[in-house]
């Protein structure tokens, strides 16, 4: 047993908030972050002056954010603007709360990439492979999917199941950016970007912000919402091929396996107990890699596993019930953690998974993470 397993059920998510998602050139990162914080505070009913822990991600400057919110924390962390940071930040905050470094931690993520016309490649992110024309996280995932296809016979129609299921969920989520239903044929006919990936394998790029407020289980009892407990988590990095950013020759399989063992072991549950999965979906293949690493199927079997609507509400494993990054919002894992909390609370309306009691977040990336949430 890992020493950190003692954190099981000790820390709760007590407040969540998100802005609208879309194209908001009239505001900026701080404006979006402030709105998400305001909504999270209203959600939990906490006196904002009690917030003494602040973690920011993709917000340019933690101190300006703190000034805007009128906070004087005793614990502050700034995470780099990478997609893999959401669960990393939540786990760090849980450890800080347990250690008493702060009593109430606000975690704020803001993204203004849509209005700023970010495209995640080329001159925006210079790299060692530029002279060969290789750039962008999408291309790295295309390389991985091409290899998965060759090794295991996975098809693009199977990959389409991921995009189609998440788009279906987005249609049930008033906050989602892309609601128009799509079919496997639409996926197959979409414009290729970095073949074998097509437009509908790519996440959206939109503006928005998310905030989570965490505290200890004991303090959580005095707040407005039913607490949602962090029951398990796990972590493993894979830095060995990082000069090809966002790439791993073996799909982070060993790392996600390790994360799964840590997470399920800590929470005392297994894949068969998971009522809903919130899966980091920067690109659709990441979902396949995550399912294999977590043990929902064997390595190489994810294509067959997702066929026939497995990931849809009512399917065997409802996944990304808010629509995910592919169809709801590109909040880089943060909104998926909020969705996990709302599923446990039973606040998801038309997209609610009945009696959701074990909801898991996972991110298969060079810093793989998973978190299991349960009712407090």
């Amino acid at each position, binding site marked *: 047993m890992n020493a950190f397993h003692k954190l099981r059920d000790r820390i709760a998510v007590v407040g969540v908030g998100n802005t609208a998602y879309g194209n908001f050139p009239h505001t900026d990162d701080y404006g979006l972050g402030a709105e998400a914080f305001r909504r999270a505070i209203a959600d939990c009913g906490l006196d904002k002056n009690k917030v003494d822990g602040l973690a920011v991600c993709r917000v340019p400057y933690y101190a300006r954010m703190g000034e805007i919110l009128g906070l004087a924390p005793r614990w502050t962390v700034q995470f780099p603007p990478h997609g893999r940071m959401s669960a990393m930040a939540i786990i760090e905050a849980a450890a800080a709360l347990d250690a008493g470094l702060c009593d109430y931690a606000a975690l704020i993520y803001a993204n203004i990439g849509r209005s700023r016309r970010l495209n995640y490649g080329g001159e925006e992110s*210079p790299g060692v492979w530029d002279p060969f024309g290789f750039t962008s996280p999408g291309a790295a995932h295309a390389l991985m999917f091409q290899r998965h296809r060759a090794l295991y016979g996975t098809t693009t129609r199977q990959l389409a199941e991921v995009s189609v299921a998440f788009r279906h969920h987005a249609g049930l989520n008033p906050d989602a950016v892309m609601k128009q239903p799509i079919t496997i044929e639409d996926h197959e006919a979409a414009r290729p970007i970095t073949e074998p990936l097509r437009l509908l394998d790519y996440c959206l790029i939109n503006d928005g912000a998310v905030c989570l407020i965490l505290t200890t289980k004991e303090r959580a009892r005095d707040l407005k919402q039913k607490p949602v407990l962090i029951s398990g988590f796990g972590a493993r990095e894979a830095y060995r091929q990082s*000069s090809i950013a966002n790439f791993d020759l073996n799909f982070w399989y060993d790392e996600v396996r390790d994360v799964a063992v840590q997470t399920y072991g800590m929470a005392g549950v297994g894949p068969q107990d998971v009522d809903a999965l919130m899966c980091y979906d920067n690109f659709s293949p990441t979902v396949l890699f995550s399912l294999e690493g977590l043990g929902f199927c064997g390595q190489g079997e994810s294509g067959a596993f997702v066929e026939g609507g497995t990931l849809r509400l009512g399917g065997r494993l409802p996944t990304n019930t808010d629509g995910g990054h592919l169809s709801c919002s590109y909040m880089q894992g943060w909104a998926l953690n909020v969705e996990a909390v709302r599923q446990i609370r039973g606040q998801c309306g038309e997209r609610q998974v009945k009696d959701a009691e074990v909801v898991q977040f996972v991110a298969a990336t060079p810093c793989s993470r998973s978190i299991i949430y349960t009712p407090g």
Partner: protein
Amino acid sequence: MSTMKPRPHIDHISRGFWEAAREGRLTVQRCDDCAHQHYPGAPICPNCLSDKQSWAPASGRGTLLSWVRFHRAYWDGFRDDLPYNVILVGLEEGPLMLSNLIGAEPESLKIGDPLQVSFEAVDETTTLPKFRPA
């Protein structure tokens, strides 16, 4: 925005690699102390942390591990090449390298097929190691 293709970033570590490439030699960084071989170059050896690193000759042989085809130009300089390929090569020495396949289209190859380096001079200062079917 530049209409040129991006050129290699040459610094005190990578200079040896690109000078060798200009002479038609493929190299990987080898640790003088433990013989660990890696690419791209690094200030110290990831295996033993020695700071004694040299650019050592590579065989130029490798295998095709994966490939993609870009349908989008992230640099204007690549617009006329669309849709162009980028391949992932596993060098015989161990390190991975991204490059372009020449002399064939990747659709006609299988993952695992053997490749051989083939140098392509871009101008008088830059030569790129590309690969063709062996």
